[in-house]
């Protein structure tokens, strides 16, 4: 891509990543969540791949590393579900309610919101966000790599 596109992508990528992280971390108090924030971060990664070319991106991060990130997100998600099974005997039980970590309970009805609420929901949001970001980025990176070799001259 041209120099203009690369410069604008360089300036814009930080804001896209921070917005995606905000959606993931505030997933239990504002609209959004792991899937939406991961998709926003993956669209930022798609912008980088389109602007800089897949071969340059591949020098920094390979799809093998993205696969490892995705699998670790899935393992964290299932591990949290099994933590509920171990603590209370119910799969997906919210074990952290009442504990000092993410354990506060908000009053019913509209309220200003507190980041230390939700039990295991914020941790599951982070796990699902990691998984969705790594998965979608791996798909786009692999497809761009496979199609860059046979580019048609225009």
């Amino acid at each position: 891509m041209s120099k203009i596109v690369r410069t604008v992508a360089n300036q814009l990528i930080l804001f896209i990543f921070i917005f995606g992280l905000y959606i993931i971390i505030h997933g239990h108090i504002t609209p959004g969540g792991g899937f939406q924030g991961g998709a926003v971060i993956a669209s930022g990664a798609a912008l980088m791949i389109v602007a800089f070319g897949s071969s340059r991106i591949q020098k920094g991060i390979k799809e093998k590393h993205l696969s490892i990130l995705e699998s670790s997100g899935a393992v964290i998600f299932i591990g949290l579900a099994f933590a509920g099974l171990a603590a209370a005997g119910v799969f997906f039980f919210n074990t952290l309610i009442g504990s000092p970590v993410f354990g506060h309970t908000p009053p019913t009805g509209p309220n200003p919101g507190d980041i230390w609420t939700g039990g295991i929901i914020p941790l599951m949001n982070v796990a699902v966000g990691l998984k969705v970001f790594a998965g979608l980025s791996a798909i786009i990176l692999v497809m761009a790599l496979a199609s860059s070799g046979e580019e048609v001259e225009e």
Partner: protein
Amino acid sequence: MLEIAALHIIVPVLLIVCAVFVARAKDLINAVLFLAAFSLLLSLEFYLLQAPDVAIAEAAIGAAITTAIFVVAIRATKREEE
């Protein structure tokens, strides 16, 4: 409230117009761009129907990632429809 009621009519009409353009475009890049516009209008419609979660997901997946995947696929094949 009248403006919201008007948007509930205008946005679906624009959605149908975008869908017709997607189906009738000969240049596949044009079709993909109309599909991105369709996804953005669809996320606006979700927001009007008070589903901001689905609106964020639709804007990110439909307008950004699907467009990137389609453009990559078109680059590897032919640009014009036969």
